[in-house]
């Protein structure tokens, strides 16, 4: 049986990890390569590196970073942020990334997914979706306390946001995820813009809606604050993997603590 995956996410700007990192014994906590290597050694299942500047000028920097990461990190890693063309995907994969995530460019040009999947294989292509809850005032549909307050609506709808989540579109998240799978995406990286940064838990209604709609793995992202949250994303939200930043970068929990907790609650983990 495949294990559930723990995936630390590193936001990178000008070749530095931002959001801050609080790891003991790191010479340079802002170096994406050193931090990635540390996570690789301490039990992370995968890593995600997001280029949050994503300008034309930053592309060369990120390719150089990917090459250095590949020399020092011996687990699979995904690179994303501002990826627009099949050629850019090719360059990142050849530089050592296992997978590349696409977001805004895929919404604007869905053919990008199909072309990249055909050329490199579905397993290389991650569709990143930034989701924002579309409306309020919908009736609660569950009493499950594990659903966050915000998430107590099965009638809820989410809109796809683009440009680093700043710009809402009219595209429905669940439909877009389904379409992404049809086009050839191998995985969905699903970020709740509502929950992101709150440390109050993942949006499990969102996770459930998407994981029920597709057959490819869903990575839950946005809102992780406690170990319970990780468990709920898998059991309530149906996620195959959980992505987090703050709760691991700041040293609240080690990767091993997360895995032991989830294993002890009955989930298959790589320990």
């Amino acid at each position: 049986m495949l294990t559930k995956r723990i995936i630390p996410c590193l936001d990178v700007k000008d070749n530095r990890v931002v959001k801050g990192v609080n790891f003991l014994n790191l010479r340079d906590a802002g170096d994406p390569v050193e931090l990635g290597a540390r996570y690789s050694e301490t039990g992370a299942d995968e890593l995600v590196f997001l280029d949050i500047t994503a300008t034309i000028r930053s592309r060369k920097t990120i390719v150089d970073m990917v090459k250095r990461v590949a020399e020092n990190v011996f687990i699979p890693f995904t690179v994303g942020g501002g990826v627009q063309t099949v050629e850019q995907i090719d360059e990142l994969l050849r530089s050592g990334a296992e997978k590349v995530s696409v977001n805004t460019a895929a919404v604007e040009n869905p053919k990008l997914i199909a072309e990249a999947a055909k050329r490199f294989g579905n397993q290389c292509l991650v569709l990143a979706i930034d989701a924002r809850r579309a409306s309020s005032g919908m009736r609660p549909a569950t009493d499950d306390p594990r659903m966050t307050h915000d998430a107590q609506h099965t009638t809820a709808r989410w809109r796809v946001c683009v440009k680093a989540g700043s710009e809402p579109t009219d595209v429905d998240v669940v439909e877009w995820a389904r379409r992404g799978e049809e086009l050839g995406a191998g995985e969905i990286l699903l970020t709740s813009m509502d929950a992101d940064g709150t440390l109050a838990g993942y949006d499990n209604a969102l996770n459930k809606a998407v994981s029920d709609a597709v057959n490819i793995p869903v990575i839950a992202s946005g809102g992780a604050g406690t170990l319970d949250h990780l468990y709920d994303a898998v059991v309530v939200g149906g996620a195959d993997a959980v992505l987090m930043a703050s709760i691991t970068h700041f040293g609240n929990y080690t990767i091993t603590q997360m895995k032991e907790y989830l294993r002890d609650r009955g989930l298959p983990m790589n320990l």
Partner: protein
Amino acid sequence: MIVVIDYNVGNVKSVCNAFRHIGCETELSRDPARIAQATGLVLPGVAAFGYAMEALGDAAEPVKEAAAAGKPVLGICVGHQLLFDESTEYGPHQGLGLIQGQVVPVPPEQTVPHMGWNLVELPEEMDLFAGMGPAKHFYFAHSYYAQVTDGQAKTALVDYGTPLTASVQKGSIYGVQFHPEKSSNQGLQVLKNFHALCRR
């Protein structure tokens, strides 16, 4: 020197990176003379079976000769599949035929590709897993797997709804369906063990 066979496609560099990390310099080559002089050979995993066999081209014979002479050979992912007689991926294709068996699709009852970390039972008598305990997780990413029919081969299995071949050994010919170069410390340990076998 261990020679990593250069298919001139895909990301063979990650295998070289992993060997370098454990203190073992490798040479990326497809030159028959270099292959003949190597202490061990690695066939990394790239692309589809037929494409990989074609890319191997005239390097296939020297690899077979080295294996017949008892030189350690390690196939990874598709490189592991190439060790067998044939594959059905995109039509029938002949492999190297070093180990008897067929490469067939992962059963469609499970999500294909089989991608992620899965637990491999490690038989004590397999050299690659020496000193690693009864079971470890490794990173897999594949849609086909080898059905081993060779009576002289030892195998390690992984459970994906049905048991799949995760590793094979026949004499000094080794194959791993998973990616040791992407399997963290336990993957690096497998490469260390192979490196040790090449120095015997």
